[in-house]
């Protein structure tokens, strides 16, 4: 499954489109807030139209001394021009600079070039790793303005982004719960899911870019063109900007796939480095005790250098794309300088008009550039989104329509002609036909790989048989609601997992409404009471991640207590006694025998002392139930497979 997570990175442009379309639909539950955001973006397009005017006034009226004729100015700036009629140079200076200052505080700009404009934002340093870059994506303003307007827009956007991401992060997390148990047998799947959680913010990135940029860029071009038309009666610059659009697209489009591929390669190489570190960290004892330090270091060195090399190739691709853009832009700028200066030389325009034209052109080109490079900048998000949707689309464990709750099992569980194949087609279980009764303790015995755990997983429907049926009192579990099946089973896994809460809470996972007395009783029955009381805060002791300093045997006993407190009719234990000393084991077995009087107890065990306590032993070999019966009955067969198994285990005993 991890393979699929990682390998699905080469997607066609058409698929990219489909992915983006899907991302956009994600905004639907928040369309009201999003509409406000869009409105704010549109509003912030208007004030920049004022920016070039004070500069023109300074050049024309202050430096060149042309008289002010308010009628030459378009209506929206005329009130300022009227103030300048007959004003002294100092007054002109004050009025125009004051106007610029006003714009600084309202929209965060004093001119049209990037160094004279601010954009409300709060980017922090991002490493090359997903976690920090994601943090920035989550907190990006997507704002064209700064100042008071920008601050407000940033605030609004941030709330919206956080709401959206919280919503989808939670939905993704829900999906994880719905995945079938086997998906988690591969330890690495956790890792993959973890990374997908970090891919989720790509959704908002795509949504903002894809919805806002096509909205405000053309609108911005339109507004500037209209202004120039009103003031000078020409739409030429607008047409040039429109012509720039496909040029920018053409110059960068060939690089889109290249950049995406290089970016993905770089990301993969980074992941390799990260997993080298992680592997080294978790294997440190093995690495050191086997004297492989130097080799591990070299491996890390190589992987890391490789990942850096990939990143440089990614950057090189970008450098070429930008060089191509410059090659497109340069002739346009040269033409503009020529065209504008001709008009000034001919006396049609003033020097200030020329400055104004340049300022407006910068605005036009910025809009055209943003729109033209939209596609190429979205490429990086495609792969991440693909992984998010892949996880969302994984088939989960869901109840079939019309699934009925299963009544509590009273007589027993029966396997009827059950086969189970792994995903790769190898057979794990073959023609299992056995009955496991309530009121008895059944042991599953067999060598490693015989299929014991797989068989046990079929009972709570962690797995479903490839062929055949699993029946609770002759009712097929396949048609029953999952919750009603699982609530009847308490399962103790081979590897114990404890949560970072108190001992009591950990036991109560089995049944959240268990009373304290019930928790204590279960702990006593599991032989855990004694050591729990010896802990600093007894039952209230917080365990720390992964159980902290508890020994394997102690964790095992807590896991058993958790299962006992559930008081489910079916109790399944996968090697519950492997880490217990004989004394504790003996006490636990008494408890299990006691529990088996009213329940179905299924134990997977290696230890003879445990196996001998069972009423029924199912001896498995190569996925088949080879022998069945009590210990004594099976031992009575001189050529029995079980007997041979036992003798090997006890050979040379006292």
């Amino acid at each position, binding site marked *: 499954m991890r393979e699929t997570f990682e390998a699905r990175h080469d997607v066609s442009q058409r698929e990219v489109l489909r992915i983006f379309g899907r991302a956009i639909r994600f905004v639907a539950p928040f369309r009201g807030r999003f509409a406000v955001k869009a409105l704010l973006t549109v509003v912030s397009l208007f004030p920049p139209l004022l920016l070039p005017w004070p500069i023109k006034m300074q050049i024309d009226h202050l430096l060149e001394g042309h008289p002010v004729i308010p009628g030459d100015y378009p209506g929206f700036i005329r009130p300022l021009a009227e103030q300048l009629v007959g004003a002294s140079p100092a007054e002109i*200076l004050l009025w125009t600079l004051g106007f610029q200052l006003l714009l600084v505080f309202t929209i965060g700009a004093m001119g049209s070039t990037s160094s004279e404009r601010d954009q409300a934002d709060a980017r922090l*340093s991002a*490493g090359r790793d997903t976690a920090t870059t994601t943090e920035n994506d989550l907190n990006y303003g997507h704002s064209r303005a700064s100042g008071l307007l920008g601050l407000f827009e940033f605030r609004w956007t941030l709330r919206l982004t956080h709401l959206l991401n919280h919503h989808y992060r939670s939905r993704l997390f829900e999906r994880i719960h719905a995945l079938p148990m086997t998906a988690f047998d591969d330890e690495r799947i956790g890792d993959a899911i973890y990374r997908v959680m970090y891919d989720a913010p790509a959704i908002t990135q795509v949504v903002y870019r894809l919805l806002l940029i096509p909205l405000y860029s053309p609108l911005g071009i339109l507004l500037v063109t209209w202004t120039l038309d009103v003031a000078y009666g020409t739409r030429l610059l607008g047409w040039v900007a429109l012509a720039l659009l496909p040029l920018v697209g053409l110059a960068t489009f060939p690089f889109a796939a290249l950049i995406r591929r290089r970016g993905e390669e770089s990301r993969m190489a980074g992941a390799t480095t990260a997993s080298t570190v992680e592997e080294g960290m*978790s294997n440190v004892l093995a*690495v050191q005790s086997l004297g492989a330090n130097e080799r591990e270091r070299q491996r890390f060195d190589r992987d890391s250098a490789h990942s850096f090399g990939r990143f440089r190739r990614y950057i090189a691709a970008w450098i070429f794309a930008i060089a191509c853009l410059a090659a497109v832009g340069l002739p346009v700028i040269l033409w503009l300088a020529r065209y504008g200066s001709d008009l000034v030389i001919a006396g049609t325009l003033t020097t200030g008009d020329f400055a104004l034209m340049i300022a407006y052109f910068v605005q036009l080109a910025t809009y055209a550039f943003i729109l033209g490079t939209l596609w190429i900048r979205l490429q990086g998000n495609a792969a991440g989104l693909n992984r998010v949707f892949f996880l969302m689309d994984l088939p989960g464990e869901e109840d079939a329509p019309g699934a009925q709750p299963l009544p509590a099992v009273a007589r027993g569980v029966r396997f009827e002609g059950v086969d189970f194949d792994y995903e790769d087609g190898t057979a794990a279980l073959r023609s299992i036909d056995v009955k496991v009764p309530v009121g008895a303790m059944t042991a599953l015995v067999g060598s490693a790989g015989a299929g014991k755990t797989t068989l046990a997983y079929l009972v709570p429907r962690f797995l479903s048989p490839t062929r055949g049926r699993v029946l609770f009192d002759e009712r097929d579990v396949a048609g029953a609601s999952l919750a009603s099946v699982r609530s009847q089973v308490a399962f103790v896994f081979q590897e114990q997992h404890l949560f970072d809460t108190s001992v009591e809470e950990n036991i109560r996972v089995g049944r959240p409404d268990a009373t304290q007395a019930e928790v204590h009783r279960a702990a006593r029955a599991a032989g855990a009471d004694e050591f729990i009381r010896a802990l600093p805060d007894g039952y209230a002791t917080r365990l720390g991640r992964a159980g902290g300093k508890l020994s394997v045997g102690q964790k095992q006993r807590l896991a058993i207590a958790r299962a006992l407190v559930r008081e489910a009719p079916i109790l399944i234990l996968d090697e519950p006694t492997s880490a217990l000393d004989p004394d504790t084991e003996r006490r636990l077995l008494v408890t299990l025998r006691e529990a088996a009087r009213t329940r179905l107890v299924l134990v997977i065990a290696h230890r*003879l002392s445990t196996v001998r306590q069972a009423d029924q032993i199912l001896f498995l070999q190569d996925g088949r139930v080879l022998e069945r019966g009590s210990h004594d009955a099976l031992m009575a067969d001189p050529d029995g497979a079980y007997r041979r198994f036992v003798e090997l285990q006890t050979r040379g*005993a006292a």
Partner: protein
Amino acid sequence: MASPTRTEALSDELRRLGSGSEGDRLSFRLVVAVLLRCLPLLRGVRRHLLAFFGIVLLLFAAILPLVAMGFDIFWTGVLQGSPLPEIQARLLLLDPALVSGVDVLSEAARRSVRDHALVAAAVVLLAVALPAAGALTYYYIWITQRINQELRLQLHDRLQTLSLRFHAETRVGDAIYRLHQDSAMVSDLIEAVFLTPVMHFGRHLIAAGVVFLFDPLAALIFLLAWPPALALGYWMSRRLRIGFRAARETNAALTARIQEILEGIKVVKAYGTEPAAQRSFEAHSRAAFDAAFGVRFLVCIFSVLVFGLVSVTTLAGYARMLEMTRLAEPVFAVALLIGFGFDRFTLGVFNLLKGELGWGSGSFRIIYRMWARAQDMAIGLDRVFELLDLEPEVQDAPDAVDLPPFQRDVTFRGVHFGYGPDRPTLEDVGFTARAGSLTAIVGPTGSGKSTLMSLLLRLFDPDAGSIEIDGLDLRAVSLASLRSAVSIALQENVLFGATVRENIRYAAPTASDAAVREAARVAAADGFIQELPDGYDTLLGERGTKLSTGQRQRVSIARAVLKDTPILILDEPTASLDAETELRVLRNLRAWGRDRAIFLVTHRLSSVRQADRILVFHEGRLVEQGSHETLLERPGGAYRSLVHAEAPPAPQRMAAP
């Protein structure tokens, strides 16, 4: 030696660092300290950095005058029609008599000046500026990567030694793991705290310097942004740090929550606690977003304020320069500037300086943004550097010798050890294991069996007593020679994503194929390996074939066997084997280990019987030692009661031994 108190203090410290749950102990000084701490990392690329900055400065020195003259030619000459200074005319390959020696330029002259100027600009841009920018960007990234590589390697080495030390301390191991995640930010460290600020501070100064040459007062007005901005920065820093810390903590809590739930997902599903897990996740997620919102909005306010501040002084600078231009005042450094044709303020000069102030204020804002970011990074990096500076506790003595070839025995003498002062794990342990013997170590969970073996590997030093190999104290021996004399096979064993053969050969890369097979045979692994799809060349791990626990254990035993060391520790490596296989493995090992000392830590009594000597541990004490037979005869003995708990009633018919 490892005193318990120090051990405790160190792990406490790491835990605290890992959780980051402390007040604002990061002052300005600490941020600077982190900065200074970065400097040694630059040593390896010193020459490249000098070359990079040198080239950048040279390019600036070459291009800036050209840009300045270009502004003057275009605004003053072409647009206003003023004659060009001679030097500018010559540079444009125009006849000075036509464009310099006149009162006003004719329309034709203005057009021809313009055309020459545009061609010159295009040539400089395409031939010099663009290629240089591309090449320098690439060079710059290459340099930062070199630095990062160095830092990563240092961290990697340190994590390896420290992780070993903290192997037993799970929670501290956790803290280290989180530190590793923090260190991912290292990839941006040098750039953000050093290179970028240096470059932008340089650009800021160049801008102010250019303006200064023309008009010192305008430059001073512009620089007036510094004092209030510094005060603002000082006032905001603490608030930012508190916010960043909160954001990091809530985010770390969320991450921990996700990891915990994913690790325990089987339990969550088996017990149907999905709704509770979901609620807890959503609460953590919301808390993380709330904290992020708080601090990011603060950062945004900060940057808006800085922009407002620097805009005020920039506009004031404009005002002064507009006035100078209106009155066509002479420039300040006229002796220098006249060389480029500047003697008085013109529209071209004004636009040039306006551009420079733009660059200067842009750099100013970036410096302040970086300052805000530095507060965030310092919190993370502080921990990284503390980790880099931690000394491993077990180190070679200055006069450490290499362990001579193993001959006689391994001896523990009155060994005491505890992970903390109130938690003695081993008390007064003494025994001898001879070459050629198999020593079994048994006892209930938590009785100190594995700790004993950690001491033999010298992952820790005993608090009292000594461990000797052939009479030589381990503390006098070099770690490398000790560890190359000991191999270990663990219960939880690790296979790498490589072929079976490579996995077995992991500790002895030069071993022949025949030796690999022989080792696998000893570990009773040869049989199942042959049955794998590609035999010894079958790829294992993540993307390859998965082995059962028992098979993995045998591969790791084969690996330890192939390492061919005089001392072999088996720490419950046979726990998942069935009895038949285990017996075979132990017999093979006995035959193989004739002149070696083999230690077997185990629960299973069936395997203990193979041992020459059995050490029985209970609560950190060695309560009994001897052979199976002697111990079994001791009435009321601990071993005897262990065996009786396990053994079935004597079989009627013994299988032939």
